[in-house]
């Protein structure tokens, strides 16, 4: 099963004990997200809301592509892919 590198924003350091980079495996992004929050359950409410979607102001990029532009989370991932979480920034 492919392993994906996941980068987290600095603001979530207290949640993970200072860890900014994790790995999670899965065949799809949905698998990766599921395995990530199973491994780090405290991250779940900070990345995803009660509906299961990304929180409104959380951005997620899969290999540099905004996941909101994707047709869902069921596309395949490959070994070495990157997933970057960051907060939405609009203006200064």
């Amino acid at each position, binding site marked *: 099963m492919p392993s994906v590198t996941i980068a987290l924003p600095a603001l979530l350091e207290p949640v993970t004990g200072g860890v900014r980079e994790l790995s999670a495996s899965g065949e799809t992004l949905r698998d990766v997200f599921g395995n990530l929050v199973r491994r780090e359950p405290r991250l779940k409410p*900070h990345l995803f809301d009660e509906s299961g979607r990304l929180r409104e*102001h959380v951005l997620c990029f899969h290999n540099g592509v905004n996941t909101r532009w994707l047709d869902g989370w069921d596309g395949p991932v490959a070994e070495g892919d990157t997933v970057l979480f960051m907060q939405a920034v609009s203006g200064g």
Partner: protein
Amino acid sequence: MAERNFLDLSLLLAKQGPGGKEQRVSVRLLVGTTKGGFWLTSRDRREWKVTGPFFKGWKVTAGLRLSDGRFLAAVASDIYGPAVYATADGRASPDLDSWEQVAEGPAYPEGGDRRLQQIWTLKENRGTLYGGVQEAGLFASADGGRTWVPVPGLNDHETRGGWMPGAGGLCCHALLFSDDPDRMWCGISAVGVFRTDDGGATWVPRNAGVSIVLEDQEHKGIGTCVHGLAQDPSNPNRLYRQDHSGMYRSTDGGDFWERNEDGLPTAFGFPIVIDAGGSALFAVPQESDEHRVPAGGALRVFRSTDRGDSWHSASAGLPSANAWGTVLRGAMCVDDLEPAGVYMGTTSGTMHASSDLGDSWTNLPVTFPRILHVSAWSQ
């Protein structure tokens, strides 16, 4: 924060311990801001040592020291949502550098419509912890904050369809308890006060006498906007209420409220606190509900020493001009010493302390981010 041994030192303040024995104590304040928490510690309530920020970048919205010695802190982010953190152990001097997020904190069900946005207050009563949250609701923990469950009797109340948010959101922000273990009150903006008399199973709005600010077409008894609650320590059914519509008190556990505004320059404000001896109430009037600034740019505290019959300015030492930051509902508190210390932080990030029940104030040499929460502990 290199002061974890601070509480172990021989200190100058004193309070009466068991058997009337004098104890040496210090005072610790938690100042929660929009960008982190700060500790202020003092051995004499005149000189303060500042440490922090911790949870840098997060709002620190509530704090609680548990009976087992641990601290809890509620944090929130507009981006990443809320969480509860706890210090690691319950020793006399807990490691304040070591916080761990509670894994099963307050949470609304997945797939539901409610969103947990912020934890506004944390309280402990008879070994049970309570958290009042936004969107408005109440959660309880029977294991020292490690796991939390909703209180459905309130969260799914029959009037919920008529609950409307105030300017600060739809939030449960005030919790009071009784010597009757089955009785408890909560305050929700902009809904009103609810009371349970059966240990939280059922709740009844208790707002008679309070002007309605947002009337609901269907549900009556709500639509008031409680901003702050205080309780006479010698009589839990004597309640004080800073409401959007004015200042009130109740002598019957909230069955009926009457206005008590004599001497207040305006009846609008947010915090109301009472000292541990029940001798003085404190409030911070604001110019109006539209302007929400100190009237005339003078930061003034009003005090009542006759159970709310009359109010008088107790503002000596506070900025009397060009002070436009005001005090939010959670940003004022008292300690349990004699005479009581009174502490408040403003939306401008200034901190003000009194060590003599409000007779005089010191403006502390700090400028924090906007201050959301201030709580005090002596030890």
